[in-house]
């Protein structure tokens, strides 16, 4: 019981400590690709620390939803964090939910953030919320199909079981359906983390924002929570990709301390590589028009569908 609690708390601490860093690394990498110097990779920590010291200015129109939303969203993301294997396959609370539960916890977080966007009565907020839900609606079918493709491979949506089985398979884990599902899930990750070509995380024009427009009314401590929640969500999505598609090196239950440290290092390496890939994609593409996004996400949908079909073909239906 105590060990389980320790392990859960450790996991939360790792997520919180590491998620701003990965944001910083992505920003730095983008700057590198664009031949800029860019801010330090620790800048997100400074930003959050600064925001936590500042007062929140709130709109005069808001209700309790506006104040509760960041807290609920953050709590939902953190709960999802306890259901996703990070560097070790055994999760103390892993029995409480599976991959689909994780997806719905993210949906809970998104729902409240979008609700809060409407609370201040600003058109920007409404636009952001509307677009966020639009993108989410496009992402969802592809996401579910790629989850199914992965789940088919091991016969379960239990996340620690998936990573355990796949890491035990060695190089055989790289099967055609895994590759196709990976491509699909990578596109989804771009959309879910609000990156180019879906959303521009560094824009300063209200009309082009999605996620940023949604949280436009937040400031100070509340904004810090929202930002930290978004970064944590990004880290969790990267972890999902890392541990579902490249599960090698993840520690299993009962490993010694040195094995755990090694697994943690491998995990960080994987996450950084995914982050660099994101930065490369962001640099090499232009932002798409909102109404061209269905095309992008139907590419993702098709890949996840192909993953399923090729699973059936290869395994001989």
């Amino acid at each position: 019981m105590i060990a389980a609690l320790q392990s859960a708390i450790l996991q939360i601490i790792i997520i919180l400590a590491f998620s701003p860093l990965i944001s910083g690394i992505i920003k730095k990498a983008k700057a590198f690709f664009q031949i800029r110097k860019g801010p330090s990779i620790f800048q997100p920590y400074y930003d959050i620390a600064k925001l936590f010291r500042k007062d929140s200015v709130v709109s005069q129109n808001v209700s309790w939803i506006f104040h509760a939303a960041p807290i609920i969203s953050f709590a939902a993301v953190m709960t999802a964090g306890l259901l996703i294997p990070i560097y070790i396959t055994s999760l103390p609370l892993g029995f409480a939910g599976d991959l689909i539960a994780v997806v719905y916890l993210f949906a809970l977080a998104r729902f409240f953030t979008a609700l809060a966007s409407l609370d201040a009565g600003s058109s920007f907020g409404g636009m952001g919320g509307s677009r966020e839900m639009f993108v989410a609606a496009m992402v969802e079918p592809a996401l579910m199909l790629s989850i199914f493709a992965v789940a088919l491979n091991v016969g379960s949506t239990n996340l620690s079981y998936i990573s355990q089985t796949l890491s035990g398979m060695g190089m055989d884990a790289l099967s055609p359906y895994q590759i196709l599902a990976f491509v699909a899930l990578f596109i989804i990750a771009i959309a879910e983390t609000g990156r180019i070509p879906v959303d521009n995380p560094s824009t300063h024009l209200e009309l082009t924002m999605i996620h940023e427009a949604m949280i436009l009314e937040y400031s100070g401590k509340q904004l810090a929570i929202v930002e930290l929640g978004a970064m944590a969500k990004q880290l969790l999505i990267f972890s999902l990709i890392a541990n579902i598609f490249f599960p090698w090196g993840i520690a299993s239950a009962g490993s010694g301390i040195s094995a755990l440290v090694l697994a943690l290092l491998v995990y960080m390496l994987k996450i950084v590589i995914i982050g660099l890939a994101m930065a490369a994609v962001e640099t090499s593409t232009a932002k798409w028009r909102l109404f061209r996004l269905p095309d992008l996400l139907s590419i993702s949908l098709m890949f996840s569908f192909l993953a399923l079909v090729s699973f059936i073909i290869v395994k001989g239906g």
Partner: protein
Amino acid sequence: MSVDYLFFGIIAFYLIGAVSAVILNKKDAICAYTSFISAAIAALLGIIFSISVIFGDTFSYNLSGGSYLKFGFFVDRLSAFFILVISICVFAVSIYSTGYVREYFGKKNIGYLGFLYNIFIISMILVASADNAIMFLIVWELMSVVSYFLVVYEHEKPETRKAGFIYIVMTHIGTGFIMLSFLIFVGTSGSYSFGTFAEAGKTMTPLLKDLAFIFALIGFGTKAGIVPMHIWLPYAHPEAPSNVSALMSGVMIKIAIFMLIRVFFDFLGATQAWWGYVVLTLGTISAILGILYAVVESDIKRMLAFSSIENIGIILIGIGASMIFFASGKPVLASIAAIAALYHLLNHSIFKGLLFMGAGSILYSTHTKNIEELGGLIKKMPKSAMLILIGVLSICALPPFSGFVSEWLTFQSLLLGFNLNETFPMIILFISAAVLALTGALAAYCFLKFFGIGFLALPRSKHAEHAKEANTPMLIGMGIFASLSVLLGILPFYVLPVLERIAASFTGNLESFTFANFATFAIPSSMISLSTPIILALVFIFMLILSLILFLINRKKQPVYETWGCGQPVSTSRNEYTATAFSKPVQMWFKNLYRPARETEVTYSTSLYLKESFKFESKIEQVIERYLYEPVVGFVITRSRKLLVIRTGSIHTYLGYIFGTLVILFMFVIAGGSS
């Protein structure tokens, strides 16, 4: 024996409610209280009765001893489950109604409403417990007609009359198909008793079975609101008084689902896999089309009606998957899918009832159901807003509320399709899962719009500005449903064993889930488990910690300022995002389906650069109505005009027709006798 008394006690109390409503017609308040409270008592009895049947023996009672036409009641676990659903809904809705009908005091005839309301519920309970095709059709017809009168209760409005007309026509077409389906059974079994239908189902030829399946699907599907037979639903449900809409959407369409399960599994034995494919496909289409129309709708009650179509679709996806598994000889999977469907059915009854009652409260206090005229209600009616928010979270399937558990189960049962080892069913199950995921996301979109535009920010009209909190009985009624929504979400641990027993009554498999510590339930074959209480607890713990931290570091009062408007003083309701704008991206995305027509009208003052007013109108098209029903209706009408030639107006011609008919009949008899 005590069960007998219970059953007749239920009917007696509803009858008391109905009769007292008529007798006390003159005194509005007393009339409302007696008829609705008596319905609530009957509902309590109904809950006790159905639970005792689910955990005990089936209940049957014969009214007459004849062998050919044997009238009687028969309640097994499946029908008891539906009586349970009816009773729970009726209990909360009746309490709500005592408050809601105050709106009609002095304006409308309360006794009439109370009478119809009680008779409507009796008819639904009798439908669930009828043991004979003739008796079934009588009470089914009673249910349809009474619900028609309830729909046209506010008959002074022309759109209500139109809605009622569409409803009565569609429901009769449905009844016609039900009769056809039953006649096929009767033709084989030689008896009208439902007990013999199952035997008949085993001996029928495959062709007859297929026909019985199709007719039953169309007939009951019309009542359930399955696409493409759904067109009456978005007209009829919004026009009825809100408490009745809650019952119609919450319960009445579920009765049709009950009969579908009864016919497919009990009578026909669910032997053909393609029946499952058809049901699954129709369910998937209903789910996606229902929610797509709901998203762009700005009339609250119409939106809820479309969302009912969606949820019926989700239920049918579960049933279809169950039929596919059952036909492939996998009863364990079949019962998991059936449990998913039943769970969602129960959940939907409750949260949709809650949302319709919420819509009623909004209507009650603002006199509008147009979402564009609302806004800011969370400050005017905080308690209702809280309860409705719970309903919204449940219908969006967000953890840990009730919808989440049933949608999770539905996804898992679709995923279990990989046990089939056949390509086609796997692909169709997975496509259905993808569409279901889209449906879920759009449902979140839709209800986010409903709550966000309707309740948050600033009031958009005078109606919303003068809104008042709903009265106590209404809040109690909604509160019951809201707490049930939460409980069904966090206590699947206790609900699933009950549903297992019910699903076992038609799939024959009792143990589908395993249960573990921390209120966890698991599907053993795919090694997955879910524990919503743990999820809730975790979310709560994190919220608590975070709030504590914020409380500790946030000593000063938060400064309050205007909403950001690029530096302009724009903090008025006219600058808010509208519901139409909010759902515009979806409208653009699916513009081939909606075929939107827009009209804009600009008036200028003095110069072309100064716009005085801007009028925007946007309409979407109901594709199925337009391209499936209108041509048929048009064809029938033009043909019927042609038939007018036989109406000559001369009595001699008419007598001639009768004579001609007689002669043909004679010939028919002679021909039949000679062969």
